């Protein structure tokens, strides 16, 4: 099996990567500032709609309908796009999708493509694939540009450069961007201005654009991209050839369904009533926009995810990133620690399922990157019960280890003890001695091995002197 590029080769498991990230005070300040800003704004944007919970339930139901009948909706989408002059391609995995895009780019005679920010193309490592084949790639989203020029990795679904503050971005632009003024100010408006000047020529001369898609409508063949800067409109309008790479699960049944998602997505992601620009196109329109349109439908682990009745809920995700912004773990470790283009709570359930390799320890560590506090489920616009899927995936990880693992041995011993009253009470009595290990604050910070594996990253409350059963017998017996 070929390796799925959704995770980055060489990333340590989450606990190790998190320790490194936690030691970076600048990173923690940047993330705390950004996540707290967006959290407050999102709460305000959501509170404005009295029917928000109804919209969430509709969003959940529409996405379930899609997943349960995905084959039929994809066939309908293909027929509708084809009827309007587009071409549909199917890609089983990342390398097949990359080959299709490369072939189409070469056929169009382009030496360079302009790109709209897209999670699907980040997931398949398209930029590396095109560049190693000699095709230049220009990221046109401001945050993607910051990541590309900084030779960096994305750390957030919506704002890939969220880990950078304005001063760091100023340094990257001054160093890497030809023609950036020497006195460039570390102000968002000035930084956006130089990005505009830098990319304008590229937009006006590009012949091939590559995009992702937020939604595609099965009954009309319409494809939808939401964005803010206008780089999306530039890419979707000016080049002659447009190649859109879309995960299979992005299809929605009907045009009417967009009335739900065009409300849920902007308020959940950038916390706006509406994002500045949404483009919707259907096939090819003579005399307006690209005259050649290719839609690449990407599997890359999605059908394997679909086969798990609990795990498949992750495929409802509309990539808003609200769950990242509220997550206490993400806020402290940042996105890089997850080692994947999909970080945060949704990444912790989506990445290991897309990787679909029980031997991959890094991916298997991701469902543990959570305190199961449930904030992610509360904000999710399509009601993905992320904690439920996290626990389910942890159970799968443990089961894959077999009966000889530490957990399995421990659980077997516990079952033996708890299966008999005398054994259980004896164990409780012995256990209460563990309070001697606790400090003055009643917490245990260092257990001897193998308990040290637990206390390496957590405290344990010291057990009380007396068990409930012993207390009951003494006072009521």
């Amino acid at each position, binding site marked *: 099996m070929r390796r799925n590029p959704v995770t980055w080769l060489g990333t340590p498991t989450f606990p190790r990567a998190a320790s490194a990230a936690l030691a970076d005070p600048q990173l923690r300040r940047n993330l705390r500032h950004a996540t707290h800003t967006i959290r407050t704004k999102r709460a305000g944007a959501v509170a404005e709609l009295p029917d928000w919970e*109804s919209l969430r339930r509709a969003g959940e139901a529409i996405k*379930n309908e899609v997943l*349960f009948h995905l084959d039929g909706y994809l066939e309908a989408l293909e027929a509708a796009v084809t009827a309007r002059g587009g071409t549909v391609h199917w890609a089983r995995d990342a390398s097949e999708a990359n080959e299709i895009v490369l072939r189409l780019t070469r056929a169009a005679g382009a030496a360079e493509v302009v790109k709209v920010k897209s999670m699907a193309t980040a997931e398949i490592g398209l930029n590396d694939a095109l560049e190693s084949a000699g095709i230049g790639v220009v990221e046109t989203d*401001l945050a993607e540009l910051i990541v590309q020029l900084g030779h960096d990795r994305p750390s957030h679904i919506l704002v890939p450069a969220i880990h950078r503050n304005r001063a760091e971005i100023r340094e990257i632009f001054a160093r890497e961007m030809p023609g950036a003024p020497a006195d460039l100010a570390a102000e968002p408006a000035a930084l956006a201005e130089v990005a505009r000047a830098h990319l304008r020529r590229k937009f006006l001369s590009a012949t091939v654009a590559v995009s992702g898609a937020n939604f595609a409508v099965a009954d009309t063949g319409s494809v939808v991209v939401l964005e803010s800067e206008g780089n999306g409109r530039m890419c979707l309008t000016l080049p002659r050839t447009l190649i859109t790479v879309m995960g299979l699960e992005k299809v929605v049944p009907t045009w009417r369904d967009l009335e739900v998602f*065009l409300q849920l997505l902007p308020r959940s992601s950038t916390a706006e*009533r509406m994002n500045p620009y949404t483009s919707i196109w259907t096939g090819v329109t003579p005399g307006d926009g690209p005259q050649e349109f290719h839609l690449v439908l990407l599997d890359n682990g999605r059908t394997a995810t679909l086969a798990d009745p609990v795990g498949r809920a992750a495929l409802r995700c509309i990539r808003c990133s609200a769950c990242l912004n509220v997550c206490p773990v993400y806020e402290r470790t940042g996105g890089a620690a997850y080692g994947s283009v999909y970080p945060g709570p949704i990444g912790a359930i989506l990445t290991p399922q897309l990787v679909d390799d029980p031997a991959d320890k890094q991916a298997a560590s991701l469902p543990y990157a959570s305190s199961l506090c449930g904030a992610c489920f509360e904000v999710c616009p399509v009601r993905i019960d992320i904690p439920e899927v996290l626990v389910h995936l942890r159970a799968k990880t443990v089961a894959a280890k077999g009966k000889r693992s530490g957990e399995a041995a421990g659980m077997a011993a516990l079952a033996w003890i708890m299966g008999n009253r005398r054994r259980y009470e004896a164990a409780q009595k012995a256990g209460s001695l563990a309070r001697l290990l606790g400090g003055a604050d009643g917490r245990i910070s260092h257990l001897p091995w193998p308990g040290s594996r637990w206390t390496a990253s957590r405290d344990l409350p010291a057990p009380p002197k007396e068990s409930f059963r012993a207390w009951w017998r003494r006072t009521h017996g």
Partner: protein
Amino acid sequence: MADARAVILNRIRAAMADRPSAPPVPRDYDTHRPVDDLLGLFAERVADYRATVRRVGAGKLAAAVATALHERGARTMVVPPDVPASWCAEGFRWLVDDPPLAVDELDAVDGVLTGTAVAIAETGTIVLDAGPAQGRRALTLVPDYHLCVVRAEQVVGTVPEALAALDPVRPLTFISGPSATSDIELNRVEGVHGPRTLELLLVT
């Protein structure tokens, strides 16, 4: 090698061997919400994006166009071929996109004047569908200044009402304020690649 399409469709069918049935989609959300002052709400929400809205009487559109262009200092404007001649105030140079102008020509003008298809009050959005007085998509994208005429009867309250009024197979652009980014510290900054200034003339 087997056909990727057939392989993927087979994988889906195998994955869904449990054939769960999806409950019907609950549509108890609001498609319409009563509003006292629809146009006032629209103007307020557009202004939140730092776009300008001027209310204009039907007979005074050309004068309002002239005022807006004077204040902007714009002299050369591009228009779609079917813009009503009465919108094009005297004293400015009007380039008609017929035959279609090259992108460099669009990049060189001071702005673009168009109509719109539908406007959404709650979200402060205008929607262009390449229909009457709107032209092709590049026209309202490349120039740095977009002056847009919205007729009062084009304004609806909610997103569902707007989608119901649109034809899905036309090329559609939803515009909510000038181009903006939240990519630096998640703070919104106006003015990136799309038009950096958006002004609406609301004809009542």
